[in-house]
């Protein structure tokens, strides 16, 4: 699928793995920590105007609401650049959301699009059957100047998903299982393609979660087949024409993996690597200090509903600080209307405005020396959420919520809900 999208955007009939191409882009994006560097580089390119002000999206989401004076300056710089270049799609406090939750919600990406973003989790939009990949600030500057980006065409890994997942198993468990199987460089420079009739049991929110973490296996991008679920999602959010690309019958893959959803257990990544996985049956009982439910990986409505289902009418353990972060204002509002926020507050958790915050140890929940957190985020390298001697365990919203109640890493299946 990826090769077809790249060929189309490079004006070629077909491309081969390893080939270097220049592709036209449908969307380019940056955030408050990557855009400032890109803005400086853009000024040095000698190009006066951005290539297309409608195809650029800038979202201040990492250190907002402004974490400190330096962060305030970075946001100011991004805001002024958007204003000076008439970039309408600049999202600030009050309107913004976490970029990879906000952008699909706003209908900015369609199947068949080619998208780059100065953020590694830009691969999220592959859930919509688009080619979407993370790049750095200079690539963003070059793209804003030219509307193009150079790529080495990736080879692909195929994941054939079958079966039906058990009650508390969602996209997060599936992708953690995959990363644990192939390793943090198992998909290095490759495209991860998801197909199979098991996709019937994987919601759009779960697909975003899975595509989001393609980068944690080193993947260039993750991409899903386009089906009825995709079309319904797109239809509700945009009405421009789009192209659905399908892999050929005889498409060549470097490896094919069979994923039987019925055998996937709730899964946890232990410190300090996303591929250091265990099933919940193997890690029960590790005491924790903090729980984070949110992020571009699991900050969507389905994630909040699952957490609320488990927290409803209960109180979190006394020794745990629980922070819940809806991914966008719209999700926050829906959660409010559905009574989820009431459930969260009554359970003794802190509910935050959308922000990346604690996921990268920025603010809104940084860890002290010796502290342990379980989080629905995407990385747990040393010092990820704060002190180098703190620890982060990665998990699904269900496992995180169950752990919040127990005060230690816990299995949602054993809660008796």
């Amino acid at each position: 699928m990826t090769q077809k999208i790249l060929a189309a955007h490079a004006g070629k009939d077909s491309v081969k793995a390893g080939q270097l191409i220049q592709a036209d882009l449908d969307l380019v994006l940056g955030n408050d920590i990557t855009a400032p560097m890109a803005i400086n580089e853009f000024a040095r390119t000698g190009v006066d105007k951005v290539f297309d002000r409608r195809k650029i999206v800038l979202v201040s989401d990492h250190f907002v609401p402004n974490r400190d004076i330096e962060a305030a300056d970075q946001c100011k710089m991004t805001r002024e650049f958007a204003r000076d270049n008439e970039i309408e799609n600049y999202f600030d406090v009050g309107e913004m959301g976490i970029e990879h939750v906000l952008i699909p919600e706003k209908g900015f990406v369609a199947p068949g699009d080619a998208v780059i973003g100065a953020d590694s989790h830009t691969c999220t939009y592959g859930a919509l059957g688009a080619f979407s990949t993370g790049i750095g600030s200079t690539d963003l500057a070059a793209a804003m100047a030219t509307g193009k980006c150079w790529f080495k065409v990736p080879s692909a890994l195929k994941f054939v998903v079958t079966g039906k997942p058990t009650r508390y198993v969602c996209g997060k468990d599936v992708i953690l299982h995959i990363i644990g199987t192939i390793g943090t460089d198992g998909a290095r420079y490759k495209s991860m393609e998801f197909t199979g009739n098991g996709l019937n049991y994987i919601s759009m929110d779960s697909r975003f979660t899975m595509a989001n973490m393609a980068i944690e296996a080193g993947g260039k991008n993750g991409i899903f087949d386009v089906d009825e679920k995709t079309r319904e999602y797109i239809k509700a959010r945009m009405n421009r024409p789009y192209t659905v690309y399908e892999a050929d019958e005889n498409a060549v893959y470097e490896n094919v993996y069979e994923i039987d959803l019925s055998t996937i257990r709730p899964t946890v990544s232990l410190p300090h690597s996303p591929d250091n996985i265990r099933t919940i049956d193997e890690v029960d009982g590790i005491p924790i200090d903090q729980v984070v439910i949110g992020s571009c990986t699991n900050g969507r409505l389905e994630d909040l509903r699952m957490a609320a289902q488990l927290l409803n009418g209960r109180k979190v353990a006394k020794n745990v600080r629980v922070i819940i972060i809806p991914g966008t204002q719209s999700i926050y509002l829906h959660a409010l209307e559905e009574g989820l926020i009431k459930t969260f507050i009554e359970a003794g958790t802190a509910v935050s405005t959308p922000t990346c915050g604690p996921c990268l140890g920025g603010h809104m929940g940084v860890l002290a020396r010796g502290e342990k957190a379980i989080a629905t985020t995407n990385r747990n390298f040393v010092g990820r959420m704060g002190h180098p001697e703190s620890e982060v365990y990665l998990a699904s919203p269900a496992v995180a919520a169950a752990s919040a109640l127990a005060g230690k890493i816990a299995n949602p299946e054993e809660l008796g809900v």
Partner: protein
Amino acid sequence: MKYKGTVFRFGDNIDTDVIIPARYLNTSDPEKLAKHCMEGIDPGFTNKIKQGDIIVAGTNFGCGSSREHAPVAIRECGISCVIASSFARIFYRNSINIGLPIFECEEAARNIKHGDDVEVNFSSGAIHDLTTKQAFRAQPFPEFIQEIMDAGGLTNFIRNTVAKNAA
């Protein structure tokens, strides 16, 4: 162009959170970023190195975030180049784009030791361990990427192209 320096070794999967922890990403200033280079794994690193020294690492160097601040910190603190068994993809392209020389060579990464003096020839990819007298050769860059590196990074490359078209 030749680079010569003393080697500082690291292992596999050196991620961007240890190269430049996120709390320092509230600036794009290369000088400020340089002060915190490798702080997540070796807090005294910037005091130990001298201008021109070389990082040698295992597989998947630079994995994790897309933060360009990572190769910028490495370049600015005085490291002349990075040799690794393999690089994570975003770090690889960021390094090329900002003009930080990188060399992919499994044999060199496996054999060169911490503290060795090493010389690297950028155009040929020849790597010489002056301490052990061993010689290695890195994967050459494709021509297009070589052009970007020769220009000193992607921004310069674009600026040169824009200037050429305007002339």
